[in-house]
């Protein structure tokens, strides 16, 4: 399969990263913040695979790292969603600016 120049993938990754940061800064809904984190992780994974395809085409190290990253993201999503569920049950709310129970 003939390929794009590497920078195009990097640009897509940069745009996704910026969107993720925007969501993480802006949103107060805990679920939306989780969405933003997933978008960030995806942009990082795209970088792993793109770099290994262009700079080390005969190795699969980047793909292995991306696999680990995806698995970690699965664990993170499971725990994050469980926390959101627990907080929602306790407070009937998922607004992170209202959750002050652990503030020192």
């Amino acid at each position, binding site marked *: 399969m003939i390929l794009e120049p*590497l920078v195009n993938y990097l640009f897509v990754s940069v745009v996704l990263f910026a969107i993720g940061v925007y969501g993480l800064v802006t949103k107060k*809904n805990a679920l939306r913040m989780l969405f933003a984190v997933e978008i960030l992780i995806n942009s990082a994974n795209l970088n792993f695979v793109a770099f290994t395809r262009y700079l080390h*085409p005969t190795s699969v190290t980047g793909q292995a790292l991306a696999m680990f990253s995806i698995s970690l993201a699965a664990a993170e999503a499971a725990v994050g969603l469980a926390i959101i569920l627990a907080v929602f049950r306790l407070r009937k709310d998922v607004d992170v600016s209202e959750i002050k129970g652990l503030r020192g």
Partner: protein
Amino acid sequence: MVDFVFAALAIITIVSAILALEAKEVVYGAVALALSFVGIAGFFALLDAVFLAMFQLTVYVGAIAVLILFTVMLVRREQWLKIKEGVYRTAGVVAAVIIALGLGYLVYASAFTHATPTLEQAPFTLLGPLILSDYWAALVALSLVLASAVIGAVVLAKLERD
């Protein structure tokens, strides 16, 4: 020169990522997020990482997106619509623009613009031996992390019973 498939995938991924954060209903946001994951899987396939594309579809779209969708439906309330972003919106937009311009310029000014596509590629069958030889310790640690994460998620989800 931009390939049509690449352009379509980029548009799908970026637009649905924005939609995931900006859709009025969180449920639509979750569906858009799943679409964004599918776009990333398309990129993986375009980069000759076919196994990783299948992995992404299975784990992200099949597991994480569905898990998110279930949670959204489970805890959905009308009062979510009243959560407003307010003053942070400007800060978020400014931060995103600064990061996009800064990293974009960094990429543009880097040596990677000269990285040319090569036709040689590694078969994905190397993936298994690599993970089981060089990265076996990471694999074991990852299995422990996954197991403890699942147990922790179950414990957290049963919190109310106490």
